[in-house]
């Protein structure tokens, strides 16, 4: 690959490589950023934090030239830059790992990684050589265990897509690299590899920007932390000068003193029971969720958790075993059947599987309850707006109105729209696959209390999460999966990060041993 040098990374004092001054950006009436300053220094990781919709992704998109700022100035190595296209920023060594990576669906991982760079290798490209190169590059960072160069783009999981996106950037040897919530789609293993990668980049003198809502990552990785609120700069602090509470206060605007603890209650009758259920992806699953109970499903990426959820809601076929809903055997042929039986399902990948991006917030919220709101076939826009408004308020979805297009919302707010759709359905069982992915601290707490409230109202809740603190905090009971099987069930008293991880790493098939 092009071996652009990393020398001369310090044309400004304090090793500042990239500086943005007084950046302003608005979208119609929405002010996304005003007067924001950001500095990224060589050999340092600068975290960028803020609530959903604070303007983090917008700021990164301005750095790459994806958006043009209304005001302000961008300097790279002391020189003023006016990017009009991401290709220009890429050419001078600036890369951003997008929150929602774009992957070419019909070509291999190898081609996806070198997309755009293939031209450099001559007119005819040599597939075998490309794959060897990809394998070598993946191995350098330990990602060869996560994804193989031959896999086709459309078959990649969210984590694998993120890895491809990261590889694309890293092989270019950029001077500045920014990550937009990279771990929101990664499991623990991939995350650990990513942190190692970031540490390597730092030691090589790359300036790193890092957006995340996860405090522990921030304190593990960052040297300095820049906080945005409502599109304004709150401040930048060195890690040593701040702590968890201080950051939360900066982000939210005041102390978050009340602590969340789930109200426990006696669980009711089972809302769903799986008895020895197998599908193409999972085997011999026994699982029960009772009314008023929050049940967690933990495991590493690829353990079959999402596949199990899709089988429960009728999107993937159950090949053997029995499913009982409220004690009665059922066989769902499609999600429509499970919805009719009172099950709601928020899938893992909001953009691909849950949202209709070019439709409004209202359309997306009422999608699953349209028949309920309609009189006969006729929909009532007024009732739809009322329902949408209720949930926009309840979940504090940051949008100018219910008529805003979902594609214009920030990532975390899009996730809340998905939750709103299923809250509006008032289900007996709510299946949530990574419900707080990309959601900020404040909103996360709100989602937890909504889950708690639903449980108290007698809804059974099944939560898949890769964040162990989330599983531990929410679940009355936790199933741990590995290799398509349930390797253990832990009660509230038994569940700890260690006990979950031990079960998650159980080798389910002797033959699978490496």
């Amino acid at each position, binding site marked *: 690959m092009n071996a652009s040098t990393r020398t001369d990374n310090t044309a400004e004092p304090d090793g500042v490589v990239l500086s943005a001054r007084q950046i302003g950006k608005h979208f119609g*009436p*929405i002010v996304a950023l005003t007067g924001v300053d950001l500095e990224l220094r060589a050999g340092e990781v600068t975290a960028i934090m803020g609530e959903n919709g604070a303007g983090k992704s917008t700021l990164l998109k301005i750095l790459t030239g994806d958006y043009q700022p209304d005001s302000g100035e961008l300097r790279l190595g002391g020189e003023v830059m006016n990017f009009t296209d991401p290709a220009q920023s890429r050419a001078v060594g600036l890369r951003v790992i997008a929150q929602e990576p774009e992957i070419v669906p019909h070509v291999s991982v190898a081609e996806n990684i070198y997309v755009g760079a293939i031209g450099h290798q001559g007119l005819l490209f040599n597939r075998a050589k490309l794959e060897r190169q990809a394998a070598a590059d993946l191995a350098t960072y330990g990602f060869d265990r996560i994804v193989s160069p031959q896999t086709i783009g459309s078959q990649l999981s969210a984590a694998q897509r993120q890895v491809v996106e990261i590889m694309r950037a890293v092989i270019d040897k950029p001077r500045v690299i920014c990550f937009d919530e990279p771990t929101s789609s990664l499991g623990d293993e991939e995350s650990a590899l990513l942190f190692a990668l970031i540490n390597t980049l730092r030691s090589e003198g790359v300036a790193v920007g890092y957006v995340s809502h996860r405090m522990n990552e921030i304190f593990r990785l960052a040297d300095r932390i820049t906080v945005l609120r409502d599109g304004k700069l709150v401040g930048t602090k060195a890690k040593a000068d701040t702590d968890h509470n201080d950051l939360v206060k900066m982000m939210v*605007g005041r102390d978050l003193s009340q602590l969340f603890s789930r109200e426990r209650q006696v669980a009711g009758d089972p809302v769903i029971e799986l008895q020895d259920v197998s599908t193409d992806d999972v085997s011999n699953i026994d699982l029960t969720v009772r009314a008023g109970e929050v049940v967690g499903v933990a495991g590493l990426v690829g353990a079959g958790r999402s596949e199990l959820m899709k089988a429960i809601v009728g999107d993937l076929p159950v090949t053997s075993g029995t499913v009982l809903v409220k004690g009665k055997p059922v066989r769902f042929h499609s999600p*429509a059947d499970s919805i009719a039986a009172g099950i709601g399902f928020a899938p893992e990948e909001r953009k691909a599987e849950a949202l*209709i991006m070019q439709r409004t917030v209202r359309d997306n919220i009422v*999608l699953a309850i349209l028949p309920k709101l309609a009189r006969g076939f*006729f929909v009532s826009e007024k009732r739809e707006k009322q329902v949408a408004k209720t949930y926009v308020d309840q979940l504090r979805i940051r949008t100018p109105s219910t008529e805003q297009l979902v594609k214009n919302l920030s990532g975390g707010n899009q996730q809340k729209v998905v939750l709103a759709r299923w809250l509006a359905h008032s289900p007996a069982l709510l299946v949530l696959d990574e419900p707080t992915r990309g959601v900020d601290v*404040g909103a996360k707490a*709100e989602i937890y209390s909504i889950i708690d409230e639903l449980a108290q109202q007698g809804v059974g809740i099944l939560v898949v999460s890769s964040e162990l603190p989330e599983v531990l905090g929410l679940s009355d009971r936790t199933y741990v999966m590995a290799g398509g099987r349930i390797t253990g069930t832990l009660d509230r008293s038994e569940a700890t990060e260690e006990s979950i991880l031990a079960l998650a790493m159980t080798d389910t098939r002797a033959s699978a041993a490496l």
Partner: protein
Amino acid sequence: MSAPTTQRPETSLAREVMALPTPSIGRRILTTIGVQNISLLIAIIALVAVIGSQNPLFFGIDNVRVIGTAIAVSGLLAVVQTVVIIMGALDISVGSIAGLASVTSAMIFTVAGPLLGVVGALGIGIACGLLNGCIIVFGRVNPVIATLATLAAFKGIAQLVSDGRAQGYTGADGFFVFLARGTLIGIPVLIWVLIVLAVLMHVVLRYTSIGRNIYAVGGNDVASRLAGININRYILGVYMMTGAVAAIAGILITARTGSGQPVSGSEGLELESITAAALGGAALKGGKGTIMGTILAVILLGILTNGMTLLDVNAFWQNVAKGGLLVVAVIIQQLRSGERRIGLPA
């Protein structure tokens, strides 16, 4: 669990809402017609002004009727094509279905009278649509390829049953004559058929759950399925509806020409219908489009053809003009949408 709960201030939201200008009446009218369609309206007005100033015959009530009846058949197909496109698919076989319906309606009429002629043609149209839908849903064939194949096959069947010639003579039958030349409150029946269908489709798309779900399926089919929409049923239903409307178009062709036409009255209508839908703002990727836009586009194209004929523009140039109009219109729409100029456009 020790995550904090919050009561966040509403100020940020309030700021955004306050910043929104309160819509004036003019603006509200604008949003009802759709900003998208304003440019089509302006184009129509400009065209009418130019052609009218060159040839005063253009404004005659007779000429307006001529335009209206000329666009009726292609308008019907454009309206249903819009629905198919909104759902994220395409039906290239509509012209062939119309041709097949045209000959069969005339042939059945000859032996069994007008009522059975119409019913038979409709039945055949629906069956053709069902076949299209089944090939797509159960054969997993891309809609473009599937209907490209049936475009050829249906045309072949129409030629086979008719031996490639016009069939039957409906020119003396009261019902077919009424369809072709009758009027209701001064408006030709042909135009009424288009108006009724357009209003019906507009209402379905805009005000019913069926219409909402068609937009949803076109916007994101996986999300639609997970939200409980039976997308196979929608695909089959929309293609059957398209087949039925194409059959109505075929019956109108029979009525206008006085006999069943296997090919000549309907060839090329599929492309005209796609042209009108695209000009009217429907996005081929699905999820976007309106009947209002399509109807305005149909009118614009009708006036353009009629005006150029009145002004004695050579037919070859007419084709160039139509093509140019489509490209310019779509470019204007895309520029306004602010999409970045990278890769294949949405």
